[in-house]
């Protein structure tokens, strides 16, 4: 996936914390679009001044034939991340009234159209193989799709080779999503009904700790971050994360926030769960090899057990029963699954390539622990 390089600012990340730690800190701009957007969001939605953002989008030729390439770059991906974040916990210093501002939503859709086109170009619709499209057939097809995935294995590298700095980078790289783990898929709940809805709630309840905040997967991830000496505050490493990772996170938000794409977010979740239990064991092994204790590896150990449950529920009761209910969603479910494998695979390929060259997988280095 083509990305433009991050600005060559190698200064360590600032240690400043946002005024409101529950929100994402306002990130540093990565180009004209994100710069104009962040400047506009400093103002009030009641006195919206969005013309500079529109101009920057024109200048970037986001609506042109090259739009799908441009939208995968650092600048546009950061802009999308910020726009989507308004629907999660918000951005530090940004008025909550922006979330449903019609002008801002119009700008978002100008980014989303080429973004979706880019994803469709990256991941063609997988063919249905002729199995009956009932719950069992859909589950079998999804498991086969995940098994056929021949993307590079980041977890095997971490198990055997990663050093302490790379292990920290891995967590920083994943933190933009993992500190809000499960949230993008939760958008799908009110869009489903009956059996698939019950299945999604069953999975998500477990993701959120089954009523115990300390077992919430995002909390376990925060604990792992602290274990390797990282700051676990929400969105802390956004500035360090390259576009390829933002693409993976923005993909989930795109699929989750559009009811039209509910089949795809369901397929995405199924594929995510199907590619988690075995890699989680390998990640855990890597962190144990590096001398980390069970508090730090708990996140991975938990996912070995949890995702072996979730993948079964996601395949049959969620994806399978959804396709039985709404057969027209069959191809979207498959595409969402393939998309998950592709964009997550791109992150793995990026990190491996950098690490094997002895370079950082991040756009900006972490301060040493």
């Amino acid at each position, binding site marked *: 996936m083509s990305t433009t390089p991050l600005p060559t600012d190698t200064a360590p990340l600032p240690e400043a914390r946002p005024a409101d730690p529950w929100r994402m800190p306002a990130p540093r701009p990565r180009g004209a679009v994100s710069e104009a957007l962040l400047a506009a969001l400093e103002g009030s939605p009641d006195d919206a001044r969005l013309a500079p953002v529109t101009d920057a989008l024109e200048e970037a030729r986001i609506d042109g034939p090259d739009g799908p390439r441009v939208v995968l770059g650092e600048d546009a991906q950061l802009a999308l991340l910020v726009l989507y974040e308004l629907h999660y916990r918000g951005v530090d210093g940004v008025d909550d009234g922006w979330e449903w501002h019609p002008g801002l939503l119009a700008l978002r859709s100008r980014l989303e159209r080429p973004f979706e086109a880019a994803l469709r170009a990256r991941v063609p619709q997988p063919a249905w193989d002729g199995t009956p499209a009932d719950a069992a057939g859909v589950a079998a097809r999804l498991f086969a799709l995940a098994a056929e995935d021949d993307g590079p294995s980041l977890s095997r590298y971490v198990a055997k080779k990663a050093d302490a700095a790379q292990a920290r980078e891995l967590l920083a790289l994943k933190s933009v999503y993992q500190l809000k783990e499960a949230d993008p898929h939760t958008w799908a709940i009110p869009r489903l009904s009956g059996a698939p809805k019950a299945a999604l709630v*069953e999975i998500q*309840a*477990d993701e959120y700790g089954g009523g115990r905040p300390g077992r919430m997967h995002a909390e376990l991830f925060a604990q792992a971050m602290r274990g390797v000496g990282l700051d676990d505050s929400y969105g802390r490493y956004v500035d360090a994360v390259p576009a390829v990772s933002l693409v993976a996170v923005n993909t989930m938000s795109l699929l989750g926030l559009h009811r039209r794409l509910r089949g795809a977010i369901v397929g995405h979740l199924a594929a995510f769960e199907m590619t988690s239990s*075995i890699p989680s064991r390998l990640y855990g092994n890597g962190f144990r090899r590096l001398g980390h204790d069970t508090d730090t590896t708990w996140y991975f150990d*938990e996912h070995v*057990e949890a995702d072996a*449950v979730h993948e079964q529920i996601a395949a049959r009761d969620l994806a399978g029963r959804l396709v039985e209910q709404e057969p027209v969603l069959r191809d979207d479910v498959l595409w969402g699954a393939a998309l998950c494998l592709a964009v997550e695979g791109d992150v793995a390929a990026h990190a491996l390539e950098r690490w094997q060259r002895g370079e950082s997988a991040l756009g900006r280095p972490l301060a040493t622990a």
Partner: protein
Amino acid sequence: MTIQGPPDDVTVTACPDGPLLVRGPATILGPDGEPVPRNRATVALCRCGGTAIPPWCDGTHKVNGYRSGPDAPAGDGGDHGGDAPRPRE
């Protein structure tokens, strides 16, 4: 195949080529007869024998070639297994 008791009771779902999914308040006993701590509402019991975290499934069945055999007829009377006689798990 799902073994279904009264509503709100325990159900065990045999996942094709995979684990047994247990929902409801079942107590799982270890070889010593002691209850195995359950950390989640729905658990997956390994039936391929390959897991590293017994009695739970850890996804290993996907890479060790485990096949559970043809499906048993579903409890709703649905025909998932053709005319084959009811297989033993």
